[in-house]
């Protein structure tokens, strides 16, 4: 099966739009207190991209895990840095952490996706799975950190 990188393109779109929104808020609403760039925020962005991919691509694409992870790390390293949300060491840290979270969540979500019910009754299944995975991430991060 052909390997594709649609997920990376969707992740770039989601992270890019989130960075753009943060940039515009910072410029035009300087009094607003924005959410920090944290693990739950990274997990939420990754899960949005994964759910979108689930709705947009069928069947489940084969992945080159190394390249997918590398592109994910690049996305989290470059886009928030471009928007001025991170700088220097923080940008590198976000790239490493974001890439790792992206790989882990992609593996988990893909595994779950293979078992999701398809058809009319299962239309909301990817969305609900993403939501539950996000809550699980929050719990796990709360326990570990």
């Amino acid at each position, binding site marked *: 099966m052909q390997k594709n990188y649609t997920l990376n393109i969707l992740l770039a779109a989601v992270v890019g739009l989130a960075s753009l929104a943060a940039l515009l808020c910072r410029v035009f609403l300087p009094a607003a*207190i924005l959410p920090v760039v944290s693990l739950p925020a990274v997990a939420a962005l990754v899960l949005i991209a994964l759910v979108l991919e689930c709705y947009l691509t069928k069947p489940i694409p084969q992945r080159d895990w190394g390249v997918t992870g590398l592109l994910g790390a690049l996305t989290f390293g470059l886009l928030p840095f471009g928007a001025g949300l991170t700088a220097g060491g923080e940008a590198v840290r976000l790239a490493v952490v974001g890439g790792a979270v992206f790989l882990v969540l992609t593996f988990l979500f893909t595994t779950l996706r293979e078992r999701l019910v398809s058809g009319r009754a299962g239309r909301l299944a990817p969305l609900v799975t993403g939501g539950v995975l996000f809550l699980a991430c929050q719990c796990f991060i709360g326990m570990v950190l």
Partner: protein
Amino acid sequence: MRQKALVRAAAVIAAAFLILLALSAALAPVEAENTAAERESIFQILLPDGGPFEEEPYSGEDANISAVYRGTTGYIVETVTAGYAGDITMLVAVDFQGTVVGTVVRDMEETFGLGMEALSDAEFLSQLVWSQGDLAVGENFDAITGATVTSRAVANAVNSASAFVTGADVSSGATEWGG
């Protein structure tokens, strides 16, 4: 085919990065202008008729104080104290007698529903006004339920600002009580 897909993905990331970088650079002057205007309007609310405000260099020992602005009726002190989830940045307006006349939280990362209440809990915030560097959680200052660390950080910030104006020693009880 695989190479093409990979190049397409890399190109999308590079394009998004360049667009954000260009936008960020283009909007930098607008951001500086809006930030200055917003700060000035907050200063006017905290110390009405207290302008113009001029930043003074701060060379004291209190690590909670990050900047000091002097007006005609008092000071506005910017403080950064350690909260539960991260730093809490506040602006504290203090008149020349050391009485706190206004406060506003500028940035915080506290827990929603708990520490974040420090932004808007009127009962909690009203305790800060008219204090004179003597706030002590559990003594004369009621903490937000479930957010004692945040409340202490806020009390520390207000005590530090008042102590700056009155000249109280930052290592004295005036600022210790809050922590």
